């Protein structure tokens, strides 16, 4: 292998380091106008009246549209992509999510009107002149409070604010019995606080209707351009899919928040049709806080039983999951199929029951954010483990090890069937924990910690051993789980006549480096130079179809689709080569970019075969010209990366400030194509997970007003909040995809949060403190120490 497994420097970097990146807001089209969306300042209010007359007369204003204008055309709103029914079989409550609200706003930031003007500032000025009379109504933001009786209703037809309730695992009576028979039960009430994903590039969308062709182009900050096109055409605007091109050019980070089809995308597309000019909308950061989907927001009660030897006997989980005011694209799937199904963790827990209440609140929609459900599952399991170790007087590493599922490769040994639907593909959980303990110097740390405590210095160590389910496929499984889409991936490998190769992938890169990693795979498999491969993504006109990038799925699913197309290219190439070499396909071998007749020096290169395929003068009879293949890959199973993370913290006993001293991460993401890129993914995930533990949290007050909707108020991790990370890897290949890869995008974010919180609890154990809510700010820690 020339490229696979090597830290090849990224081919996309030159444009980014020289300021040549092409992000949506960088695009300017002839005759382009600027849209500004006027949003509700109230969490819950009836719109009594809107007066746009003064605004319409302002300089530069082209048009103003309100919710009534859109409703009058019959457009209902943006749909959700998953259906999760009630336990009793009743259909999920699925209220409409309008592009602009006509009657009643349901969260701070709900769109009420769009002003379109010749310039951005003219649109903003005019929006300020719109007069809206609101009748303000009571509101609720907390999911447990929203589900309580007497809470204000978000939607009149969703009693108790329930979108659904849902259950998975062993019958609750069996789990209750197992808990009752346990020697010890560890119980925790946990809040997995709401987070704002905050990719550095705010969302932006340009709608461009061209009447000459009766055709639309939407440029958008999307992780998922084809699905956006499908949802917008078929379910929102009712326009033919072949008349719409969706382009997601360079996208400045997503972390889940740009998977979804947003109202603004359909809105600018619709507006462009009305005014017959391009319409650009770019979110301001404070607007992003009230209009981008948020993540997490679970209120959970969890119980884990143990026998007298420390073996886990049962797990029971009950969670109120905040869905926000409307169901976003993946919203219903996150707390259920991406959370409940992960509660086996790495442990042999024989009985598991989980129930989830999906709750509407007067807040912006909640959906996938890096890890999406799996961080919430890992947080509750790993907090239970460290708490149980403390309660049982056991070493937390040792207690985990005792309960680990034994190693299995998924080839000679079967996959591991969990109690919560999934079957793990392969894993060696002892290996990652052992390596992490070796890196941290565990024995030595415990000695240092004991010595430090004598001098009043609060050092703590925390563990987290996690598993995740990646790929978000196969289609049959996700279909059975309520997905309304298939979840495969497509790839086209087009060999040009000169032997250069263009690859069209339905995956989308918004920082992951596909243009490099995918090219490494293609170059190695074809035995050609990396420079001779180009990866094209993010344009529905170029790429046949795609399901986009999320759930650490790009290489495992999208990469596998590329491999399938390469196999077809080589199969056809061999037929042409056999003809040219006057041999048979069976007698040829392909290596180093050429076909050779086995045992001879007769060979022909890939470039010659490519040219022959397009200039088929001397050519196999009956074979079509050309060398260009498409494939769709629908995997056999999810992939299951796992790892062990260890945090070491020091708590300042005077101020409560937590300093993260070291962070060790040993991850097993299967085979690795580019170690540099994988490590970068881990680093970024760690920072976000650590951010949740120590710094971040979206705060709504009791009236569902957002209190920290800007970077002045929402604490993003900064460079001096973090140490350099100590990372290593183990490799257990995925047994069911051709590259043996599992996915690395979310691992860091899933494992790190509980490790940090556990470390702080360990540091605070002399105070008898067992559980604090995140983020562990100095104030929160200091108050706990004073109590």
């Amino acid at each position: 292998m020339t490229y696979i497994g090597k830290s090849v420097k990224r081919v996309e970097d030159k444009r980014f380091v020289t300021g040549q990146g092409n992000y949506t807001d960088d695009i300017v089209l002839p005759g382009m106008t600027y849209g500004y969306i006027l949003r509700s300042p109230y969490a819950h209010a009836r719109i009594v009246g809107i007066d746009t007359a003064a605004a319409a007369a302002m300089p530069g204003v082209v048009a103003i549209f309100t919710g009534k204008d859109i409703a009058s055309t019959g457009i209902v709103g943006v749909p959700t992509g998953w259906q999760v029914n009630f336990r009793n079989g009743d259909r999920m409550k699925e209220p409409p999510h309008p592009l602009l609200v006509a009657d009643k706003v349901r969260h701070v930031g709900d769109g009420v009107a769009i002003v379109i003007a010749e310039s951005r500032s003219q649109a903003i000025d005019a929006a300020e002149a719109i007069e809206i009379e609101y009748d303000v109504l009571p509101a609720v933001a907390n999911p447990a409070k929203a589900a309580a009786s007497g809470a204000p209703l978000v939607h009149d037809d969703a009693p108790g604010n329930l979108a659904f309730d849902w259950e998975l695992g062993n019958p609750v009576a069996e789990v209750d019995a197992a808990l009752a028979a346990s020697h010890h039960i560890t119980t925790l009430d946990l809040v997995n606080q709401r987070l704002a994903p905050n990719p550095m590039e705010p969302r932006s969308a340009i709608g461009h209707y061209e009447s000459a062709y009766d055709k639309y182009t939407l440029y958008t900050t999307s992780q998922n351009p084809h699905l956006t096109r499908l949802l917008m055409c078929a379910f929102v605007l009712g326009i033919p899919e072949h008349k719409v091109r969706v382009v997601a050019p360079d996208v400045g980070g997503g972390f889940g928040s740009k998977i979804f089809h947003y109202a603004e995308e359909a809105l600018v597309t619709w507006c462009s049709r009305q005014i017959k000019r391009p319409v650009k909308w770019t979110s301001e950061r404070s607007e992003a806080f009230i209009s981008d989907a948020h993540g997490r927001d679970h209120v959970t009660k969890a119980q884990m039983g143990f026998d007298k030897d420390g073996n886990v006997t049962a797990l029971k989980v009950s969670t109120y999951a905040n869905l926000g005011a409307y169901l976003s694209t993946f919203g219903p799937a996150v707390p259920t199929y991406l959370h409940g199904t992960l509660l086996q963790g790495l442990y042999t827990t024989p009985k598991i029951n989980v129930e989830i209440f999906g709750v509407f609140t007067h807040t912006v929609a909640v959906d996938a954010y890096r890890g999406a459900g799996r961080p919430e599952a890992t947080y509750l399991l790993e907090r239970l483990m460290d708490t149980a170790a403390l309660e049982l007087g056991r070493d937390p590493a040792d207690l985990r090890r005792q309960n680990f599922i034994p190693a299995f490769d998924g080839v000679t040994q079967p996959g591991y069937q969990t109690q919560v639907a999934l079957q793990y593909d392969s894993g060696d959980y002892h290996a990652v924990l052992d390596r992490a303990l070796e890196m941290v110097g565990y024995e030595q740390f415990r000695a240092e910690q004991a010595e430090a405590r004598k001098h009043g210095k609060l050092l703590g160590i925390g563990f987290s051993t996690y598993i995740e389910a990646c790929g978000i496929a196969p289609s049959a499984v996700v279909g059975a789980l309520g997905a309304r889409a298939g979840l495969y991936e497509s790839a086209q490998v087009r060999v040009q006549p000169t032997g250069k190769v263009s690859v069209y992938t339905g995956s989308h890169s918004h920082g992951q480096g596909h243009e490099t990693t995918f090219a490494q795979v293609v170059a190695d498999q074809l035995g050609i130079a990396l420079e001779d491969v180009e990866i094209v993504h993010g344009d529905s006109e170029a790429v046949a179809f795609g399901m986009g990038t999320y759930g650490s799925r790009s290489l495992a699913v999208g990469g596998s689709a590329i491999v399938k197309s390469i196999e077809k290219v080589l199969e056809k190439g061999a037929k042409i080569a056999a003809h040219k070499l006057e041999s048979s396909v069976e007698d040829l071998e392909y290596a180093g970019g050429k076909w050779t007749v086995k045992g001879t020096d007769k060979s022909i290169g890939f470039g010659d075969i490519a040219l022959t395929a397009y200039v088929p003068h001397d050519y196999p009879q009956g074979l079509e010209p050309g060398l260009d293949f498409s494939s769709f890959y629908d995997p056999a199973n999810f992939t299951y990366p796992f790892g062990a993370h260890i945090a070491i913290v020091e708590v300042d006993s005077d101020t409560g400030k937590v300093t993260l001293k070291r962070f060790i991460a040993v991850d097993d993401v299967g085979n690795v194509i580019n170690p540099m890129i994988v490590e970068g993914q881990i680093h970024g995930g760690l920072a976000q997970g650590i951010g949740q533990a120590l710094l971040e949290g979206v705060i709504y007050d009791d009236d569902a007003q957002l209190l920290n909707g800007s970077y002045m108020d929402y604490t993003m991790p900064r460079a001096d909040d973090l140490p350099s990370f100590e990372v290593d890897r183990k490799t257990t290949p995925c047994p069911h995809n051709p590259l043996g890869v599992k996915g690395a995008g979310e691992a860091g974010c899933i494992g790190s949060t509980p490790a940090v919180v556990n470390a702080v609890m360990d540091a605070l154990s002399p105070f008898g403190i067992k559980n604090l809510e995140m983020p562990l700010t100095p104030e929160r820690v200091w108050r706990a120490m004073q109590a």
Partner: protein
Amino acid sequence: MSIRIHVTVNGKQYASEVDARDLLVYYLRDSLRLTGAHVGCDTSSCGACTVLVDGQAVKSCTMLAAQADGCSVTTVEGLAPDEGLHPIQEGFKEEHGLQCGFCTPGMIMLAADLLQHNPDPSESEIRHALEGNLCRCTGYHNIVRSIQYAANKMRELSKTAAV
């Protein structure tokens, strides 16, 4: 109200009419079509719009275009000669100091300011200097390495130049 300004950007002189309220970042992006400076926030908190004004790193969303009258501005597009990369740009590529690339121009311009004043910064000095610039992708680990790479390379180059 419209104001006439004379400003040098990446060595080129411009005479422009700007609105009194126009921020420097929008002048660079919209009028000069230099879209390397990005707008990542509305509170001067993220640093994605950082450029050099008379050699000093400035968040170009914090300054009016009118205030740049008579100034010399360097953006990420003007940091290196044509085709080549500045050692800082090279450092970000070599050490994988970027993923989505959105914060990168600001990080690079901030590093240019830092390394002028401190050619051999420690890790903690780099992390302190980066406090005003947000990155959501890298966890900063490789940004620190990128700036260390650039510092080493620039010191070597200046030694060579001195000889």
